[in-house]
C-alpha cells in the first residue's frame, strides 16, 4: 500500500476515528455549531458549554469520513477547558500546521498527523471542516 496513505491513516487518525473523544449529543449546550460540507455530506454537530470566557465542556456527534471525524475528535479534546483566547490560538495552530510545512514550527503530534492530508488536496477540507467552523464561531 501507498506510503503516503499509511502516513495519513496512521495511529492518531485511526485511533480517533474508531474511538472518538466525547462523542455524544448535548443538545442543551450553550452553543451548538454545525460543520457541514455539502460536497461530500459530512456533517458534525459540536456542542459547547461556554462559561466565564472558557470552554467548560465540549462534545460532538455526526457523520463523516475518518479524517473529518478524527480531526473533530482531536479538536474537541484539544479545546476542552481552554479559555476562548487559548482556543483561538489552538485553532490557528492547527490550521497553520495543516496548510504549511512547519519548519521548526513547534506543533503537537496530534495536530501534525493531519499534515499528511497535504498530500491529498481533496481531503484537506475534511481535516479542516470542524476547525474552520470553530474558528468562525470563536472569532465571532
Amino acid at each position, binding site marked *: *500500500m*501507498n506510503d*503516503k*496513505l*499509511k502516513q*495519513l*491513516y496512521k495511529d492518531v487518525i*485511526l485511533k480517533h476515528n474508531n474511538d472518538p473523544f466525547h462523542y455524544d449529543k448535548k443538545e442543551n449546550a450553550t452553543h451548538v455549531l454545525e460543520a457541514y460540507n455539502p*460536497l*461530500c*455530506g*459530512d456533517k458534525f454537530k459540536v456542542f459547547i458549554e461556554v462559561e466565564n470566557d472558557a470552554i467548560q465542556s465540549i462534545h460532538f456527534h455526526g*457523520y*463523516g*469520513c*475518518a*479524517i473529518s*471525524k478524527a480531526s473533530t475528535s482531536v479538536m474537541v479534546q484539544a479545546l476542552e477547558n481552554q479559555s476562548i483566547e487559548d482556543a483561538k490560538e489552538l485553532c490557528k495552530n492547527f490550521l497553520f500546521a495543516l496548510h504549511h510545512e512547519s519548519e521548526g514550527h513547534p506543533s503537537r503530534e496530534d495536530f501534525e498527523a493531519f499534515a499528511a492530508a497535504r498530500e*491529498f488536496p*481533496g*481531503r484537506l477540507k*475534511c481535516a479542516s471542516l470542524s476547525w474552520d467552523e470553530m474558528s468562525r464561531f470563536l472569532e465571532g
Partner: protein
Amino acid sequence: MQLKYKIMVDPLIIRQDFPIFRHHPNLAYLDNAATMQKPETVIQGVANFYRKENANIHRGVYQLAIEATEKYERVRHRAASLIGAPSTKNIVYTSGTTAGINLVVQSFLEKRLSKDDEVLITAMEHHANLIPWQMVCKKTGAQLVVIPMNERGELDMDAFKERLSGRTKMVAAVHISNTLGSINPVEDIVDLAHKRGVPVLIDGAQSVAHYPIDVKEMDCDFFVFSGHKVFGPTGVGILYGKEEHLSSMAPVFFGGDMIREVSFEDTIFAEHPQKFEAGTTNIAGIIGLGYAMMFLQQYNKKQIVKYLDELGGYARQELKSVKSLKIVGKAKRKSPIISFHFKNIHPHDVATFLGAENIAIRAGHHCTQPLMDIFDIPGTSRASFTFYNTFEEVDRMVKVLKEMKKFLS
C-alpha cells in the same frame, strides 16, 4: 482472469483511441457515470474546428461561415439518427441534460400546471430531474409525487399505476439510475402514462452511450442527454421533443438567432428548434458532439451491452468477496454502474485509498441525496464502467479494497 468470450468490442483496442490513457497509463478510470473520457477524434474535431473552420454560424455569407453552419446543422441529423428521432426539427441543442430538463419544465409544463395537479418522478432521480420539477410544483401549488422502489432499487410499477391519476400532468423518469444502475422500464412508463394522456420526459443521461435508443418506439414526449456523457465535449446536450410539443412551446431564453422579426414593441420568434437556441451556442462543442456520436455509431450497441453486462457482472461478483462491503442497487436489469458502501468506512476514505492507486471512482451522494436518505446511508462509493474499461481494472479495484479493509480493521 481470462475473457470467456470473443468480442469485437475490444477495450484494449478501443482504449488506444483515448489519449488520456496514454498520458496516464496506470489510470483505472471508473468514473464514467460522472463524465466520460474523450476519443482523439472528438478532441481533434474540436481543435480542428478552431484551427481551420472557426466562424459564427447562420448569418455569414463567406465560405468559413457557410461551412461552419453546414457542419453544425449536420450534427442534428446525426443526433436524430442516434436516438431514432423522425426529424432534425425534433432536436434542440442545449448545454446539457440539466438545461434540457429545465427548458421543458419552464416552457412546456409550467403553464399547464395548477394547484392540486401532480407531477410524478421516481425515487431514484438525479437532482437535475428532481429539483426543477420540485420548484415548479412549489411555484404553482402542484404536488410532486414520488414513485417508490423496492430495496433492490427497482421501480414499483404497481405504485406507479396507482399514483397516475387525472391530476397527473407530467411524468419524469430517469432511464438508468446514475447511482444504482437500475434500468427502468421506460416503455411501460410511457405506455401507462399515455393511456392517461400524460406526457413523459425520459432522462437519458446514463443510457445513450451504451444502450440502443429509439425515441419513436419508446414514444416518450421528451428525451434528454448530455454530450460529455457520450464521449463528447462538456457544455452541450440534446433535447428531443415531439414536434407537436416543441411547436407549441414558447421560448424562455431570448437573444439573437431565434427570431423572425424584432421591433422595440414586439418579437416574433423563429420556428423550433431555433427558437430555443438563443445567442451564440456552443458551436465547437456541438461539432465535437457530432464526432462523439460518430465514434459511438462505429460500434454495435448489442455488443457494447453484452460486454458491459459481463464486465458489470464480474465486478459485482468480485466485490462480494470484499468483507463487509454492501452493494446498493441490485435491480434485475442494470447497467455497469455499481454503488457500494462499508458500514464503518466512509466513501471518501474508500475513494482516497483507491485514488492513491490511480483508480478513479466517485464517492458521495451522486446528486441523488433523497435516494441516499431512502437507503439511510450518507453516500456510496461508485464505480461506473464503459467499454474502454477492463476486467483487470476490476481486479485492481477489488485488490485495493481488500487491502484497505485489512489496514483499517
